[in-house]
């Protein structure tokens, strides 16, 4: 599992991927990840913030030839308050709804100024993607603007104090669903992106950073809007000790509640840990995931049983329909 290959050159900047050049993937391991950090420590993210992991590793995949667009979100705060920036990349803070539109604008300027080989990447939270940001994102998909949109999904408006968002799961207690829990299902944003028939859609988890790294690299080789959805557990928001952030993230995947997949030109395949689940045909009980987080404290056994049935049905589909793929991504 651990590749002890030569690590020389790892401190050099990754060259930017050029559009149209298919990324010849070799399985990325911890030791082949670029060592250079593109985000400074001492930032304002909570202790144990899984976004911290996703962002740190994600930036390694993007490289320095990148401009980031960030709406109001935890990332705004992580990236730093004026005049100190924790991020080493050029970054544009924008209003809540306009991440995708701003990305379009950056691209237009770069094209007008004939500046090439610069990645434009939006990093929005679930609120800024699935709720207030959805309109602009949809417009950009339809226009085919050439940027990567990353949604980090901590399943709520965490930056403003844990209010529910479109992607908050059913039954979760939040600051504004404090007694009855959320009554609606989690909005499936990757499915919405797939319906736009964009060239690349992927789901990732902060608990599987190598899978995330590979998918970002791969996404950058496609045209038009690319979409990556990252499940990012939030210790204060979800109600668990910070040290379990990765464990909780893994449980989401290992119970089958959250799938790691990529969709290339509408063809879906599971990757990494989810692919392994499909091959082994065995999921951990969803109860393990719910019991690990205080926000699901009011879920009844009956409700948990309902969710288990949903997951089972969904995975029956995967077990029966999907074939193994030749390509592999790292877990």
């Amino acid at each position, binding site marked *: 599992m*651990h590749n002890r290959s030569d690590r020389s050159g790892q401190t050099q900047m990754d060259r930017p991927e050029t559009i149209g050049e298919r990324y010849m993937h070799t399985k990325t391991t911890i030791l082949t990840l670029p060592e250079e950090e593109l985000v400074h*420590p001492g930032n304002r993210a909570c*202790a*144990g913030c899984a976004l911290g992991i996703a962002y740190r590793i994600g930036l390694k995949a993007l490289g320095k030839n990148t401009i980031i667009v960030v709406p109001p979100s935890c990332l705004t705060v992580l990236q730093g308050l004026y005049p*100190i*920036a924790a991020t080493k990349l050029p970054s544009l803070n924008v209003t809540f709804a306009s991440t995708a539109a701003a990305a379009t604008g950056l691209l237009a300027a770069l094209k007008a100024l004939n500046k090439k080989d610069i990645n434009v990447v939006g990093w929005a939270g679930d609120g800024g993607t699935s709720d207030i940001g959805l309109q602009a994102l949809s417009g950009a998909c339809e226009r085919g603007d050439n940027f990567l949109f990353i949604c980090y999904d901590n399943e709520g408006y965490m930056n403003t104090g844990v209010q529910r968002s479109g992607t908050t799961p059913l039954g979760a207690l939040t600051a504004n669903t404090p007694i009855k829990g959320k009554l609606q299902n989690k909005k499936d944003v990757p499915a919405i992106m797939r319906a736009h028939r964009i060239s690349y859609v992927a789901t990732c988890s902060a608990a599987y950073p*190598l899978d995330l790294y590979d998918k970002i690299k791969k996404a950058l080789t496609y045209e038009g809007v690319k979409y990556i959805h990252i499940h990012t557990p939030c210790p204060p928001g979800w109600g668990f000790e910070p040290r379990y952030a*990765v464990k909780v993230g893994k449980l989401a995947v290992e119970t089958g509640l959250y799938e790691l997949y990529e969709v290339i030109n509408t063809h879906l395949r599971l990757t990494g840990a989810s692919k392994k689940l499909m091959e082994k045909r065995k999921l951990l009980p969803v109860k393990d995931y719910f019991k690990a987080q205080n926000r699901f404290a009011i879920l009844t056994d009956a409700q948990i049983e309902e969710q288990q049935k949903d997951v089972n049905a969904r995975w029956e589909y995967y077990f029966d329909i999907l074939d193994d793929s030749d390509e592999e991504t790292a877990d």
Partner: protein
Amino acid sequence: MGDDYRWRTSHSKSGPGDAGKTGSWRILRPVIDPATCIPGKRGTPSCYMCWLYCPDGVISQGIPPKIDYEYCKGCGICAEECPTKAITMVEESSLIKEDT
């Protein structure tokens, strides 16, 4: 407007410590036992799960890995994810002398 443009807008330059020395957030501090740590034992770069999963990037790929206590927030993810349980979370208050 020339060079003073930066003073007229919210224009931030990158550097550490936007939230100050976040090491002060800690109640518990991660301590690596080099004898149990895989790279520590083998004397060659390997494993580095702690480096991978640190949300703040305060662990560097040393032999054994080195933790920047000025900024480590003490979240404990490294201790939780270490495959050989080489990292222990120790009470800050129990330490007599602070590392610098």
